[in-house]
Each structure stands twice: as structure tokens, then as C-alpha cells.
């Protein structure tokens, strides 16, 4: 793929993800919101591919779209909210929320408007890269980082997930009258 095609693909993904995010937070039917979030996740996975983050794109599709979103949909259908569409979707304070969102976007825009130095790569050689001679693919790089310097945080992440599983069971489990 040459540069122009990549550029066009990026702008398509960006426009589509912003559109689906806006639709996701404004739709009245919660299931429609979930489906727009699904579209958002897939387009973000496409941007990850353009950013040479293939493993992240695969994890985004498998974990986010495949597991987390299905979990949300399950709970949504389990709760059975028949009068959800009849009620106002936003609270009365929604202009305040819009102002906060817009000011955040303006702030982030101001922060990034200064052009980043394209030679920054030479300034910050990564610790993971220094140890190896051959240039590797992105997935191999991520794997080496994950099981090398990040091995302890990686194991701690499994502990966090275990705590979350136990916590979810404790919170949502049937309560016996004591």
C-alpha cells in the first residue's frame, strides 16, 4: 500500500470512528448504541493496523468486540428495560456535559497543534530495541517487551483480572437472607 492509499484509509477510518462514536452516545435504543460501539471498535482496529500495531488490532477485535461488548449486550438483554426508549436519553444537564467535552477537545487540540519533531525517533531509542540486533516485526517486538521487562506487570494484570472475576461474582451473586 503506498502512502496516499494509507492516508485515504486513515481518514476514512477516522471519520467512520468519530461518526459511530457520536451515534453510539446519542442513540435512544441501547442495543443500537452497542452496535455502533461495535463499528467503532472495528474501525479503531483498522487504525491500529495502519499504525503497525497488528497484535493490538487482533486483541481489539477479539477482546473488545468479541468479549467485552458481548458481555455488555448480555447484561443489557438480561435487565430487560422496556421503558428505556420512552424516557429522555440525556439528563437535564446535558449542555454542561457537551461544554465539558468540547472544552476537553479544544484543550487536547491546543496541546497537539505544535508539530511533533519527526526526528524524535533518534532521540529516544527504546530499551527493548537496544538489546537486539535484527529489526523485528511489530508482533515480535511486543512479545519480547511483554515477556521481558514487562513480565511482572503482565502477571499483575492477571491478578487484577482474577480480582475482577471474584468481585463480579460476589457483587452479582445471589444473596441469601442472613
Amino acid at each position: 500500500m503506498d502512502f496516499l492509499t494509507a492516508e485515504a484509509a486513515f481518514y476514512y477510518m477516522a471519520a467512520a470512528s468519530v461518526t459511530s462514536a457520536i451515534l453510539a452516545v446519542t442513540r435512544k435504543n441501547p442495543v443500537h448504541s452497542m452496535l455502533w460501539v461495535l463499528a467503532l471498535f472495528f474501525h479503531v482496529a483498522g487504525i491500529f493496523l495502519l499504525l503497525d500495531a497488528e497484535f493490538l488490532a487482533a486483541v481489539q477485535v477479539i477482546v473488545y468486540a468479541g468479549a467485552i461488548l458481548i458481555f455488555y449486550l448480555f447484561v443489557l438483554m438480561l435487565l430487560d428495560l422496556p421503558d428505556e426508549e420512552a424516557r429522555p436519553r440525556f439528563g437535564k444537564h446535558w449542555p454542561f456535559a457537551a461544554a465539558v467535552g468540547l472544552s476537553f477537545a479544544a484543550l487536547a487540540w491546543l496541546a497537539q497543534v505544535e508539530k511533533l519533531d519527526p526526528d524524535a525517533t533518534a532521540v529516544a531509542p527504546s530499551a527493548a530495541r537496544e538489546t537486539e540486533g535484527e529489526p523485528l516485526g511489530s508482533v515480535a517486538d511486543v512479545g519480547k517487551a511483554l515477556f521481558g521487562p514487562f513480565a511482572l506487570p503482565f502477571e499483575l494484570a492477571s491478578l487484577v483480572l482474577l480480582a475482577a472475576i471474584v468481585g463480579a461474582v460476589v457483587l452479582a451473586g445471589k444473596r441469601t437472607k442472613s
Partner: protein
Amino acid sequence: MIVPMNEVLALSAVLFAIGVFGFLARRNIILMLVSVEVMLNAVNLALAGFSQHLDDPRGQVLALFVIAVAAAEAGVGLGLVIALNRNKPGAGVADLTSLKW
């Protein structure tokens, strides 16, 4: 393939702002949690962009940890929603006015 870093950061900021708006404005707890997921996705986008810009895999590793935390957050958050729903049907935040039941 080099995607311009400034565009990635701008997109990330816009997505995060949409997530902030959704979290503050929606009245349904589940959709507020989904807005949090949108915000986390925006952060992952910025991390992946920096990872490519600085040619450093650590950004992607951090994004993976963010995804793991997002999964934990979804589990605990939805467990809370189910526990609340058992006591009082519905998923509106405005209905949750009692501290004790």
C-alpha cells in the same frame, strides 16, 4: 507505514471528548460504562500512535494493559449494575438516590 502523529492525536482527542460527553450526559448506567470504553479506546489510539512515532513497542504493551483493565472494569461495573437492578428495577442513574436498603 507512517500515519501522521498529529492526526492520530487529534482523532484520539475527539473520541475522548465524545466519551466524556456520553459519560456525563447519558442517564443509563450501562451506556455510561460504554462511554468509558470509548474513552479507553481513544487512549489506546494515542498509545499506539506514540508507539509508532517513537518506534517503541512499550506503547503497545501499555495499550494491552489498558485493555486488561477495561475488561476488569466491565466485569465489576456490570456486576454492580446487576446488583443494583435486583434491588430496584431499571438502569437510570437518577433513580439511585438511597445510600442504604
